[in-house]
């Protein structure tokens, strides 16, 4: 298992190298990128002594963009290995600082979402599987499908219309209520921020609930059709015991696997949701950086996300093997 993990890790490093190369290339070839914009801005400032081309050359040198695609990538890679991710162009501070000032908002949001996702989706999925082809099953299936098929931006707009515009329970965007926030106590401030996280959390829960529910239902159905369940029933074990002791425990194996795998994604932020709700999380920061072509921060964030993905996959596989002794990793 250790050998397997090490091999996977080695592969992951190679994959990561190419993934980052692709992202770097995309960012590098963006025409009219951030540096060009900045050069023109500096050259047209009153009292500017250098032309836009001179500024461009200067800035390219300053940002290490003058050495071509491949060399530039290796320069980035070299400094990244030393933990130097550079300053974000868009935010004008070190990438790590941007990251640490924002990551916890995203993390908190994702933790809450995951909690409610599990709380709602798994019982619903189990219930649907017990009453297969019944009304509850159809309802759950359709509901899950609607959740999966719902465009997040549409759901968010509907939520905003209903709860922010019509009912005026929440603000349309932002993390704080600027009118009262400063006058609140520390706990009041926390509640104010928490209030602004309600709608995003609801939106994310609705969007993510469907997948988990379907997964639970499918696995539960599979377990329920297995021989040992039939044996248990034949022995006269009470139905609720059959479901919750025998079946559910076995359903937990794949569930733990995917949930464990998605633990790392708690840190990855929700790009569209955060952007549309104006939450200053890592997702919003990355969206705004990507749109303006901020290479250091985009590289940093996408590198982070890629590592999370690779780690998540590895973790899921390891968990699967750990939870289910029938599975052998090779």
């Amino acid at each position, binding site marked *: 298992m250790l050998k397997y993990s090490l091999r996977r890790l080695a592969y992951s490093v190679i994959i990561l190298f190419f993934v980052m190369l692709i992202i770097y290339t995309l960012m590098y070839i963006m025409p009219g990128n951030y540096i060009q914009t900045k050069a023109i801005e500096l050259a047209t400032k009153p009292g500017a002594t250098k032309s836009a081309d001179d500024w461009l050359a200067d800035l390219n040198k300053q940002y290490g963009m003058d050495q071509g695609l491949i060399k530039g990538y290796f320069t980035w890679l070299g400094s990244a290995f030393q933990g130097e991710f550079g300053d974000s162009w868009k935010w004008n501070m070190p990438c790590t600082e941007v990251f640490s000032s924002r990551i916890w908002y995203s993390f908190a949001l994702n933790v809450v979402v995951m909690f409610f996702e599990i709380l709602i989706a798994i019982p619903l999925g189990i219930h649907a599987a017990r009453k297969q082809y019944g009304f509850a099953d159809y309802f759950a299936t359709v509901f899950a499908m*609607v959740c999966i*098929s719902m465009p997040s931006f549409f759901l968010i*707009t509907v939520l*905003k*219309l209903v709860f922010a515009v*019509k009912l005026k329970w929440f603000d349309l965007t932002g993390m704080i209520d600027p009118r009262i926030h400063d006058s609140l106590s520390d706990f009041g401030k926390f509640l104010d921020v928490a209030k602004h996280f309600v709608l995003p959390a609801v939106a994310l829960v609705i969007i993510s609930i469907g997948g988990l529910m379907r997964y639970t239902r499918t696995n539960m159905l*599979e377990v329920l059709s297995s021989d040992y369940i039939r044996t248990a029933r034949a022995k006269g074990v009470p139905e609720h015991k059959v479901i919750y002791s025998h079946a559910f425990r076995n359903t937990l194996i794949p569930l733990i696997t995917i949930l464990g795998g998605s633990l790392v994604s708690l840190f990855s932020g929700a790009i*569209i949701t955060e952007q549309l709700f104006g939450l200053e999380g890592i997702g919003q920061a990355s969206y705004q950086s*990507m749109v303006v072509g901020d290479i250091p921060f985009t590289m940093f964030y996408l590198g982070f996300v890629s590592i999370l993905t690779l780690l998540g996959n590895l973790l899921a596989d390891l968990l699967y093997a750990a939870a289910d002794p029938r599975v052998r990793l090779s």
Partner: protein
Amino acid sequence: MASYNLNEILKKRAAQNKGKEKKEMDLGDTARVKVLSPMRQVMKRFLRNRLAIFGTVVLLIMFLFAFVGPLLLPYGEAETMYKYEPMVSDYSFVQVRTEYNGYVLNPEISASRAAIAKTNSNITQMIKDGKETFTQVANDGFVYLLNREGEGIYALSQLSATKVAAFGSGMVKVASYDGIKKAVSYEGEALGADFEQAVTENCKGKKNGTFELGGVTYTYQPGSATKSFEIFTEPSEGVRYTGAALSAAFETAVQEAKVGDLIEVDGKRYVLSSPATDDYEVYEIGEAEPFMVYTTFAFDAVVNSLPLSNEFKAAALAAVYGEGTFEAEAIVNLEAFQKQQVEKALAAKRAEHHEVDPAAAETQPAPETESAEETGETGEAVPEGAVPVNAKFNVAPSTEREGVFVISLEDGTPYAELNNVVVRRYNGDDAMDLDLKNAIRDKVAEMMEAGATNDQLEYRIPKQDEKGKNLYDEDGVLQYEDSHMTIKLRTTGEYVVSASQTRYLIDKFAAPSSKHLLGTDGDGFDVLARIMYGGRISLLVGFVVVFIECFLGIIMGGLAGFFGGWIDNLVMRLVDIFYCLPFMPIMIIVGALMDAARMDVTVRLFVLMAAMGIMGWAGIARLVRGQILSLREQEFMTAAEATGLPTSRRIFRHLVPNVMPQLIVSATMGLGSTILSESALSFLGLGVKHPLATWGSMINSVASASAMEQYAYIWIPVGLLICFTVIAFNFVGDGLRDAFDPKAKR
């Protein structure tokens, strides 16, 4: 011979056979079991799935809606809708004129500009002093006489002037001395050689001084030019004559008079001028001949836009308080003029029509000659009398309205009106009907009396067509519409009339109506049409992207699965890389990249589809490889290899068809998710761009905080369409999977 009936025989045989078959059938007969082909089995299972049927129906409706719908709808994807709608705008202004406008009566007289420029202030002074005349001695040697002809009209004349005398308490200039030329020039009489010598002796340097000569004290002071001096004497009491002395009556008269007065003594007329304080000069003036006339009156022709020449105006003004008749060049045939106006308007419209209609222009074999003919026709079509002719007019005070003069033709037909309340269009044009002008004037008069700053008026104004020009019917009759006008007093003293007028506007954000079932959007596009075309693009993007994904996926997965070994390893690492690439961030970067490159919208659409396809093939490749790995070990593949089939045939004829079920399921689900991501990207403004319609960008265009409530009828149906389409694809995908392999783990 018995009759032979083929039909009967056949029937008999059929009956015999039927009986035989029944007899031969037993319980163990395999024919008793109805065997369905695998395809029909799948079909049967699929049709039994209610959700799948629902999805299929929704998809069918969606396809009809997106691909057939636009054919039935009369509007295009980016076709701007227009509408006639009342729009309130500043229509005209009303001003009570206090400035006097000058009209030249006699162009042959060239007058001093300075004198003319002062006229308005002189008139103000006259009104203040209650005077009838005012004279002004200008520096061009003429005297200008302003004469009040009557209320609102003043005539300016130029008169010859000769200086006859001077008086006053100021110093009197007698001579000037040029120090360079050593010459003395006198103002009046020469004072002799003694004087000149004294001047030459004294006037040196740059100083003032005095010298005495013959009992008279002379004062000198430097003049404006170098080394020049001016010499003055103490003023003498009484009047100093330039020429012969005049009577005592003259002296008293001039001393009592003020500057500007007209002095009449002994049948001669004099004017005063004051070159310096308390110093006066008296001029004798000749006959007055008015050459300009000043007025606060404005001319309103009875017919809209009738041009009145300045000569006509001047002559009319001169006649108002004079003879009452005058002669001038003007268009007198009003009917003909009106007809001409209409012709012009219609011709302009026709010309425009020709311009915008290239097909019509092409069909004309020789457009040049044609247009020449046309202009010739219109030239001929100008009705006789629509050109200015010399005619006699009468001017008389209006019987109906106070302070208004009516100019009429010899036969008594009203021709124009003089009014000092000016009503003009807001842009300054004189393009309003006289009755409208008078209605506004009456209202303004009422307002002035009541001291009101706001009032309202209902009146008719000309209708406008698409181009903002006046609208005529087929008979060339101007069309009118009733307008609600509000009159407001501005702080500048003008009254501004804002009128509601029906205009041809882009039909923006129209509410749903029978014409536009879902209204129109911010560009005046029909929302229903946009939704249909948006559906086309969304479905198109879905299919193309999934096709690219499958194409790449099958090839790569097929290669990896079939050959195994290092090819498999390589392809799978590539798959891993693409699996690891975060989809949404990469698409956002690609979108920003396309934004920065300012890509054409159509090119952008293709690049977007390619990018999404390339990002999505890894899943398909993994699926195909997995399937092929298990299929490869089966007997039919060994058989295929044994028969010596070429590799490509084995892959694409034997393996791939067996992967098809899973592939179809995966592709159907992929369609849904592709549509979902495309709409999200378009919503963020990074996907398909305006003017191409897509569902995502349509929602984005009205999803701002201020618009989302008001235009819910635009974005909610669109959002639901996306939702339904994706759900339908997912249901169908689910149904297909269940149908292909009922026992498969979902």
